[in-house]
């Protein structure tokens, strides 16, 4: 499926859009990490919690649960929620 990458993570992907596969959001993030080593830990902590300033949308709806089932036709958008100066 298509995954849109925010600018803060493009040092890993070197592109704004990439492909990943998996039946759940956790599986998709694991697949992304296989392709771009280290990218998952910047988004998800060691207790499998999505980090505070990261938002993930699937077909326009925010997803907070890594066990969320996904379809191959879904579009995953990762967003950085910037705050402060």
């Amino acid at each position: 499926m298509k995954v849109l990458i925010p600018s803060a993570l493009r040092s890993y992907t070197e592109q704004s859009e990439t492909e990943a596969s998996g039946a759940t959001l956790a599986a998709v993030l694991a697949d992304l990490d296989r392709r771009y080593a280290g990218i998952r830990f910047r988004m998800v902590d060691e207790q499998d919690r999505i980090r505070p300033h990261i938002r993930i949308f699937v077909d326009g709806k925010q997803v907070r649960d890594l066990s969320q089932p996904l379809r191959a036709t879904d579009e995953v958008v990762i967003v950085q929620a910037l705050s402060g100066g």
Partner: protein
Amino acid sequence: MAHNSRKPAERTQQPTARARRARRVLVMVATRKGAWLYHGDAARKTWRADGPHFLGHILNHLVLDPRDGRTLLAAAKTGHLGPTVFRSTDRGRTWKEAARPPAFAKTAEGKEGRAVDHTFWLTPGHADQPDVWYAGTSPQGLFRSEDGGVTWDPFSRINDDPQYRKWMGTVQDGTPDGPKLHSIIVDPRAAAHLYFGMSGGGVHESVDGGQSWAPILKGLEVVEGFDPAEATFHDPHCIRLCPSNPDRLYQQNHCGIYRLDRPSDHWVRVGKSMPKQIGDIGFPMVVHPRDADTVWVFPMDGTSVWPRTSPEGKPAVYATHNAGKTWRRLADGLPGKQAWWTVKRQAMTADASDPVGLYLGTTSGELWTSRDEGRRWTCIAQHLPEIYAVEAAELA
């Protein structure tokens, strides 16, 4: 941290070798929005800036490995991404991210586990363990790498030990940007002899390579009304071991400046001899590379609501040359008025040259140096982001 086992030098001693003075100094500056490397000439008069590295990243520490003189580790995160460690084996020309940065163990399903917010402190291991590094994190955690910083694992039992977790407290108990494990010290005589500090949580020692730890709290004061016997109320800001006498440690604490001479476990508050109008509150502590009686501190205003600025807006370094019996103000070249910055705990350091060079980075983004052990100060960089850490290394 440099491991230097040479004997203390007489303070009046002349430079021992011209070649020693000619070694060039690299100053590593970690800031709230990136890192810079400053390369000095042989006289430490002119400096070439190399940076920014990691523009926009929050860099809490940037350290050169004294064992190979090439490997740099950088503790980084950004405002929105998780923490990581970057590694360079060519003094910052190229960088590669750690394959497994410091992270707490995953807890069992249904239990609330901790997550590293940022790696705060990096310490190269003992000279006999060339690939070992230690890291301290916020919230407080102790980690170790055995492959030069590529992969990291929780080190010792303290991260999950109930007693240590109690002493660490919660995020609400720590410093404003998170409680920190810092000042990881390796005894240059014995790789298994370790110290660290926790803000808050006290000073701790291991003599068995981290298998067991014990607090060293005697003599340390705490905020009025709290029990000094309780480690959780202690807030060591910065602890340093004297390279020329590893039995001596100094500490800048939330409640004063202290010295410890082992095997005693009783800290002596040597800051009581500081001028009363200045006090003995501050963040950094800098030890002389060859003279265990000489240290430098940078006092801050710890009165009323704790402005944490230079007292009266007049920044000054204070030095002792007699292990804390008397202190001397060193402010020549520093602003004489209306300078409301201060220096954080990792942002002041010394090189190993003769005379010793001192370096301090300010919360207002200025980098100051002294080529004569603090007698005269010069600003070599302005308008940097808030400086979190300054380290200096002499390059072969």
